[in-house]
């Protein structure tokens, strides 16, 4: 069955890039522009995995992760933080909020597909 990956990023080119990396691998990619949009799309689309930016307008990635984890129906859903911020406390904050893993920008296709493979098989 086709697996769905939700990418949440306020940057259109990053969303496009993720779709560009994953769609040829047979994933369906759904896009959201901020945390709030991400929550809505996660509820509507029930993705198999989420790749999210952290610093976004309206609702940031960490808040979104917290909200998702507070909802038992998202238990076990892999959520990967996509960020330039190797700043440790940000990463830790994300992990504490319930993120599964992370991708540090800059990333390329191999990096994304590698992490997706690690979490989705």
């Amino acid at each position: 069955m086709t697996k769905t990956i939700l990418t949440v990023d306020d940057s259109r080119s990053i969303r496009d890039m993720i779709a560009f990396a994953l769609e040829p691998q047979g994933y369906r990619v759904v896009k959201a522009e901020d945390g709030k949009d991400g929550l809505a799309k996660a509820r509507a689309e029930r993705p198999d995995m989420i790749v999210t930016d952290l610093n976004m307008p309206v609702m940031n990635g960490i808040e979104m992760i917290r909200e998702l984890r507070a909802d038992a129906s998202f238990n076990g859903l892999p959520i990967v933080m996509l960020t330039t911020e190797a700043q440790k406390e940000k990463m830790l904050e994300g992990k504490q909020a319930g993120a599964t893993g992370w991708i540090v920008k800059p990333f390329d296709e191999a990096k994304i597909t590698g992490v997706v493979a690690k979490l989705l098989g």
Partner: protein
Amino acid sequence: MADPMEEIRASFFIECEELLEAMQDGLQMLEDGAADGETINVVFRAVHSIKGGAGAFGLDALVAFAHTFETALDGVRSGRIDVDGDRLKLFFRCGDLLADHVRATRDGETLETAAHEQVVEALEALGGDLEEEEIGDFQPMAMSLDLPGLGSDGDLPDLGSLGGLPDLDFGMDFGEGGATASGAWLIRFAPKDELYSTGNEPLYLLRALADLGEVEVTADTDRVPDLDALDPAAACISWTILLTADTDEATIREVFDFVDGLCELSIKTAADDAQSNADALGEADLPLLDLPVAEVEPEHDAPAAPTPEPEPVAVPESVAVPVAVALAPPSTATRPALTAAPSAASDRKPTAPHATVRVDLERIDRLVNLVGELVINQAMLSQSVREAGVPQTSPASSRLDEFLQLTRDIQECVMMIRAQPVKSLFQRMGRIVREAAAAVGKDVRLHTDGEATEIDKTVVELLAEPLMHMIRNAVDHGLEKTEARIAAGKSPEGLVTLSAGHRSGRVVIEIGDDGAGINRARVLKKAIEKKLIPADAQLTESEIDNLLFMPGFSTAAEVTSISGRGVGMDVVRTAIVSLGGRISITSREGAGTTFSISLPLTLAVLDGMVVRVEEETLVIPLAAIVETLTLNSTDVRTLGPETQVVRVRDAFLPLLDLGTELGYRTPRGDYSGAIVLLITQEDNSRTALVVDAIEDQRQVVIKGLHDSYGHVPGVAAATILGDGQIALILDPIDLIANASGRSRISTRAELALAG
């Protein structure tokens, strides 16, 4: 189809422009004192997103510059750095340079770096407390491994330097606390409940290990309870993996990077494990290192529970690519900066990123053209229906009226597709002001107004040059030097205003300054010196002001590097006129000067005067006509066989018969009673153009002739009138400029073709 990666790259640069705009807006708000707590976050986020995107595309130089800027902005939002006027100026400068950087990267140009280095130094001087690890986040191969795990235990050696070591050196490198080793590894892996709830999957981790070498996996299912006692959310299986691979501990640990803290993990060389399999040890033919036991977590009893996936694992095809890791030990103090910012983000006013579609300009132009046809067709239809004698009250007529209304609405909508707010244009002027002010050592503020005013895209593009020139003029010549301003009792800071708005179906853009106003005595003196006007000329104030538009006019006592480039206001006016626009000046001594540019909303339709010459119908752009007159016999004077002038008030203007010029007829002997249009030339001189009749004044849809006929002197384009007639749209300025010394016969031929 184009390379998708290139398209994404292109969309990144478009996005950068939007982000740069948001950044500029934010900085402007800070300068105007209109900022709220969120403003700095918006600026920060804009720069951050540029950095993020640039990072994703591996644009390292751009990332590095954005990072320096971002760090300073982060300092501001966390309160480490106070913003004052000078720092704001620096930020504006950074914003400008960031824009340069983005555009240079986009266009593959190299950037002049001296200015950058200067700014980077100034920025770094601001945020002196930049932390070392923050720098790491923009390095291309961001790989900062903090091992072992949450190493708060003091007895564990710091293996943080592991990542930088060569992958494998036959174990001869003992220097860094046993960084590399090869051979057999014994890994014990016991997931906790949270490992599953956060979406990790042990199976895939085991597969990733299998990618490193040969694995032998044993699942410990002792803690799996009976089915009725089973808690589905609990972790109850642990694994022991014997890995035979030429690898180092860091690489193995990297496999488990996401589950750090969510499992018990021990990684040892098989040799070091007293209980380990002797066979495995035998295969390890290299000296093995005395690796420390790196426990991720203190010992912790894993709860008993079910099996998600047992048994040794086959090596899958998929390749797990190492992922850069940077995990914080909990002992690292959280910077205060990060706590305040995100919470404010939620109540940010939405700057409404509308959904947009990118469309080829060519398609839009085709649509514009087709709608033009529709408008013409509609007009022809209306005329036919009227001529057929259909009563006004009939259903056909009223439906035709609706059709008319719809057509107009469609036309308006289509024109709006091409319309663009002048905002981006105005923002570029902010930079021009800053740079010009810095160059002449004046303190200048730019105030903009009506940025949302929309105007045809092409007009926006073509307006940039003239506007830039006028802005530079305003800063350089318009505003007084600071001392002079103080002496005049004005604020030392000069003000340049740039505004846009709609006025009677046109867009009016005004460039004003609060300087000393035009020094008319000096302008007059200069014009006489340069023999632009006779020494005894009597000019009104407005006529003197308009001398500025004469070619080669420059009043600046000292030619400065920024505006004294030999490009005069005459060039500006030519550019404006070519856009179907008009420009005028108002100036008050001591209070400043304002240039007002009036432009058509679109280049696709034109306000024209429909005239008749012989049997031809012609359209003359209204923008070029200053006045229409009917001549008296006493107005015309003959100076030579083909040279006549008309007296208009106190001036004598050359008379040109349009019919003769276009080759429709030979010159008449007597022009009394003729209708003339007064046309203003680029050099501000006027010419009287004789026509037979003025029929109408209306908007016409422009049909380009250029593609079919090239440039025809004196002809701008063509149009189709309501009755289906084709009429040429003349370019009277070009026509007059070409009036002498060209072959009438050939022009006639060209026009016959064009018609």
